[in-house]
């Protein structure tokens, strides 16, 4: 490559970087703007939120909306419920999904491909298709208005992608490791637990995160399966607060923000697993 060509290539690269940065800054503003507006409102008094002209930054920042949210409605209970439901859902669906994924990845058995296609197809089932009968079944076995009924539903919804994602991940782990374990006299289950699962940790963490988010963010199932206040989840609490406190925007935004915080923090902590797990599991080329 001669000097002129190298210089033009360098200029082209600089231009590309400038274009990329402009796009990224715009995107960051786009992604953060609604959250910033929510944050700003949550630190306003009710009077300030409903005053004109609209203020971007609160003049007299106050925590009263957060205090009010916590005292007017039992958000502590909602949080406890959501953390319990989402945590158990994440653990159970990841374990059961990983078992299935390992079965699909390492064993040949009849109906294997049919079952795998079936798992894939259940991912297409919309919640509203099954919510009516599921509601009646729960009522019949006295699990209506219980967190257990909700957990069973969430775990099941998470299972197809958990199984597929971990299967993809297990496929990328050499089978020789399993065989070495067999030679050493370990059982298939011990191999799964002690050899394969530790290697598959990034994929497992990504699945955990996915399942936790799905359970935490759901509204439909909680809305249909929970009707008493002390069993409500955070999203359900927020949804009902909207109906009750129509004009209390600082309180609504405070509740919304606090309700989004756990998944946000979890994501920030685990994000390096997320892209890698997705890349090797779901998106494996």
């Amino acid at each position, binding site marked *: 490559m001669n000097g002129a060509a190298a210089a033009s290539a360098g200029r082209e690269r600089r231009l*590309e970087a400038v274009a990329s940065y402009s*796009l*990224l800054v715009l*995107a960051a503003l*786009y*992604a*953060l703007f*609604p*959250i910033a*507006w929510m944050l700003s409102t949550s630190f306003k008094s009710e009077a300030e*939120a409903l005053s*004109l002209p*609209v203020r*971007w930054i609160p003049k007299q920042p106050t925590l009263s909306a957060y205090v009010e949210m916590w005292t007017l409605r039992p958000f502590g209970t909602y949080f406890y419920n959501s953390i319990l439901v989402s945590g158990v859902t994440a653990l159970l669906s990841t374990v*059961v999904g990983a*078992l*299935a994924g*390992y*079965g699909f990845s390492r*064993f040949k*058995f009849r109906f294997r*491909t049919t*079952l*795998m296609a079936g798992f894939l197809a*259940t991912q*297409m089932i*919309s*919640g*509203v*298709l*099954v*919510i*009516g*009968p*599921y509601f009646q*079944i729960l009522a019949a076995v006295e699990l209506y208005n219980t967190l257990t009924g909700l957990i*069973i539903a969430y775990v*099941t919804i998470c*299972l197809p992608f958990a199984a597929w994602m971990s299967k993809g991940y297990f496929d990328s782990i050499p089978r020789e490791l399993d065989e070495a374990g067999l030679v050493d006299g370990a059982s298939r289950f011990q191999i*799964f637990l002690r050899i394969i699962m530790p290697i598959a940790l990034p994929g497992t963490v990504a699945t955990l995160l996915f399942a936790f*988010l799905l359970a935490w*963010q759901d*509204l*439909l199932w909680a809305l*249909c399966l929970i009707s008493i206040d002390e069993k409500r989840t955070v*999203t359900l609490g*927020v*949804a009902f607060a*909207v109906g009750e406190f129509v004009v209390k925007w600082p309180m*609504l935004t405070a509740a*919304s923000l606090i309700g*989004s915080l756990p*998944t946000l923090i979890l*994501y*920030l902590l685990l*994000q390096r697993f*997320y892209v890698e797990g997705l*890349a090797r599991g779901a*998106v494996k*080329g």
Partner: protein
Amino acid sequence: MSSGRAWHDRHLGYLFVLPATLMLVGVLVFPAFITLKLSVTPEGGSGWHFTLAHYQNAFRDPVLLQTFKNTFAFVAWSLVGHFTVGLGLALALNQALPGQTFFRLVALIPWTIPDVVAGIIFRWILNPIFGCLNPLIKIVIPSFPAEFQWLSSPTLAFPAVIFANVWRGYPLVMVMLLAGLMAIPRELYEAAAVDGAGRLKRFLHVTLPGLSTIILIALALDMVWEFRRFALVLAMTGGGPGTLTEVLSTLVYKTYFQFFTFEYASAMAILMSAVLFVLSLPYIVLVGREQ
């Protein structure tokens, strides 16, 4: 011994897959069949009397037809938005620039916000008097009406919901495309550059072919997710004004749990699922062939 191992393994395979299969059958497949049966049961009836009346009513129901149209438009425009924003950002994030991790982190944040919260935020942003969008537009277009009612406007409520949904949903498409981009070997780009291919040519002949499968998968999955999107619409407009922003999931929910016509709701849910199934068939075949 070796045949014993094979026999053992074949049955162990079932054992590993069994718990997940049982749960899927119990919680999704079995209730789906009950819905199917309910959809051909006369209203208030039980046992083995069958009727197609609910389906006949469904095909003549103007609200349902309107809702089908809304849902198709909602899904199509959301997909366009998610793909445009997602691909643009994935391409920008795939160049090893300093600070890239920070931007990737920020770009994914809308994904961590629950749908119901997203609906509330945008309702507040679009609030005609105290929201922040109207004053912002006023700065750019001084002639813009002062208290414009976005969410009660027959023409603009629907685009407003799409706008919110593009914000809420682009991150997952972006991250899948990004993972796909990262899987394309650098050498392919270098080889193309040596051959004198410009940026556009490299994009058309290296990036797009390398990304085509993942684009199909991302769009297919996104289609399913958008078809089911529920809480965002419910929290933002509740389906209004009138039924102009109603989507199938909110309509079926209301028919079940607010109007309590279970049989008719079942028929609607079956129709919705049939359409979704047909639309996602290419995806199932595609993934099946990959295996």
